[in-house]
């Protein structure tokens, strides 16, 4: 069993959420194509916080940049990837918003088509089970994505083969305009996993500690060779599906009610109450993160894409010999 797991403090989790939101909000200001993740930080920060470098991540697209940040990507490189400019790691060939740091330990969306990344994570887990016992793949996907056929197929395959993978349904209650309460037939989406014999938990997705604990259990099970798990984290998309979403499909009251349950404020209140953080320090840290990300994203937005070189072959060997 590998011991790559790092332990992050509760303050560290709070900081990761603050940083995630700072990047996210800076993108909202500067990028009309951004998909805002405000309100959902507890899910993706909690789900991916404790993984090590040998583990594979396949986060949901909403929050994917935050996961890359957490795993050490530079925000400037990530921002360049989102804008598709010179400093991007893909040389402008790829949309850096939805799979910001592709690599052998980070598999994600490779077109704009949802669902497949759940299979990729499952396949990565198969690879891990053969080559790195103790390593695990963690895979996030939205409530909407949960309905696509390849998700059902992948879960069945993982259960059948006992693969070390943790599925995290980031249920922000909407697939664009369609409420998950309507689109996800049945009482609980986690029952779909249970029906396959996959241990499943339902957690408050606005409570980062609850998410971390649920994932921790699931990860431990996977590392021990006991197969896949499923975590359903109920949260809320505080912003629109994308910038300028008219949001005709939900009421301002509903949005306001969920704003009361902001995951960052919630943990912050706990930390302050416990004396692990002062309100002033929290405000200062938030401001510092916001300012840092604002500067990085603004600079990235203004950066040039003049030096990008267009690949004219899709084949690995041609791309390598060209570079």
């Amino acid at each position, binding site marked *: 069993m590998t011991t790559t797991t790092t332990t992050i403090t509760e303050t560290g989790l709070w900081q990761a959420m603050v940083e995630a939101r700072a990047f996210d909000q800076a993108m909202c200001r500067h990028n009309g194509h951004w998909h805002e993740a405000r309100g959902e930080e507890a899910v993706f920060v909690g789900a991916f916080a404790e993984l090590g470098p040998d583990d594979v991540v396949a986060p949901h697209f909403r929050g994917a940049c935050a996961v890359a940040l957490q795993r050490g990507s530079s925000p400037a490189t990530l921002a360049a990837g989102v804008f598709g400019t010179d400093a991007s790691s893909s040389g402008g060939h*790829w949309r850096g918003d939805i799979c910001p740091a592709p690599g052998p330990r980070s598999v994600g969306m490779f077109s704009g088509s949802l669902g497949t990344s759940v299979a990729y994570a499952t396949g990565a887990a198969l690879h891990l089970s053969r080559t790195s016992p103790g390593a695990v793949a963690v895979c996030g996907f939205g409530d909407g994505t949960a*309905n696509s056929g390849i998700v059902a197929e992948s879960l069945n395959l993982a259960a059948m083969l006992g693969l070390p993978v943790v599925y995290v349904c980031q249920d922000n209650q909407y697939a664009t305009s369609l409420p998950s309460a309507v689109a996800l037939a049945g009482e609980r989406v986690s029952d779909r996993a249970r029906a396959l014999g996959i241990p499943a938990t339902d957690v408050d997705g606005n409570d980062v500690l609850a998410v971390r604990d649920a994932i921790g259990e699931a990860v431990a099970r996977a590392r021990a060779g006991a197969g896949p798990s499923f975590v359903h984290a109920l949260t809320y998309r505080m912003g629109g599906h994308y910038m300028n979403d008219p949001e005709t499909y939900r009421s301002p009251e509903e949005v306001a009610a969920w704003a009361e349950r902001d995951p960052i404020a919630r943990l912050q209140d706990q930390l302050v109450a416990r004396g692990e953080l002062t309100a002033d320090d929290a405000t200062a840290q938030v401001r510092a993160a916001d300012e840092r990300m604002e500067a990085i994203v603004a600079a990235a937005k203004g950066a040039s894409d003049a030096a990008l070189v*267009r690949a004219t072959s*899709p084949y690995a060997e041609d791309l390598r010999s060209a570079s």
Partner: protein
Amino acid sequence: MSRMTMSEAIVAAIADAMTADPSVYLMGQDIGVFGGPMQSTKGLWDSFGAQGRVIDAPISEAAMVGTAVGAAMAGSRPIVDLMFAEFLALTMTPLGLEGSAVAFRTRGEVTVPLVVRAKCGVGPHRGHAESCVGMLLAFPGLKVAMPTTPQDAYSLTRAAIRDDNPVVLLEHMSLLHGARAEVDRTLDVRLGAADIRRPGRDLTIAASGLMVQRAVRAAKDLAADGVEAEVVDLRSLAPLDTALVRASAERTGALLVAEESWPGSGPAAALCAALLGDGDRLGFPVRLLQPPPTPVPFAASLESAFVPSVADIADAARALHAPVKGTVTA
């Protein structure tokens, strides 16, 4: 007559069909109260939502198309708004392999009158540009239409809904919300018929989608040099109107095909095969102007270098026109 964008014309054609024929219904993601991705179903929810004929679907494209195939066999005339053409890749078994084969398998006794709408093309919506048109052309029985004017958008949508075969309607995102133009709701356009968008005598430029618009602009540039290009809007990518293209090119003496789709498969390759394959020698040279055989790159600068520009088309036309007409150069 009223002035519409292409997007409005498609919605109008659907609304008219739904009013006239209760067997028409619409399924898609976010097509209800949301009004459709990029307003693709604007107003239809208000008119037909209460009748259960505008159905918001979960993310399950294979089942969206699969249920439509079953409903069509049973007697409905469903329209599936698939949002983006790249999602067509999720539906090829029910749509291409099976739905398009039912009429053939039953010798026309059972049909699948189904329309699948799909947005594609480079442009305002960063990402989701792939048309996957080569994949569509790989399945016999599937018709593929791609309007470039509000009138064609209306008439081809209506024709697609009336057709007894599965039809994919490719809606180019750079054209959908372009200029409004008069639309005559009584005008029929047959699926399978190309159209001469601009007459000319010196060479033929065949194109579809955004490339038609760019070809027309290139033709204006060329006209300034005294070269009169005829622009053929393919409109129907399957079946292809090879006869019209051939006749035009035989008249003008040269054929330039400008396409946004990948080489190796798609309308340009299909056209070449149809023109060339009968063992006769072509009386005119052919030049294909297409993106390289790669996925669509993301960066704005790369994307615009990827797709033929107005200048690329004009340059290729000049080069093709330059050799003395009729000479065999090889």
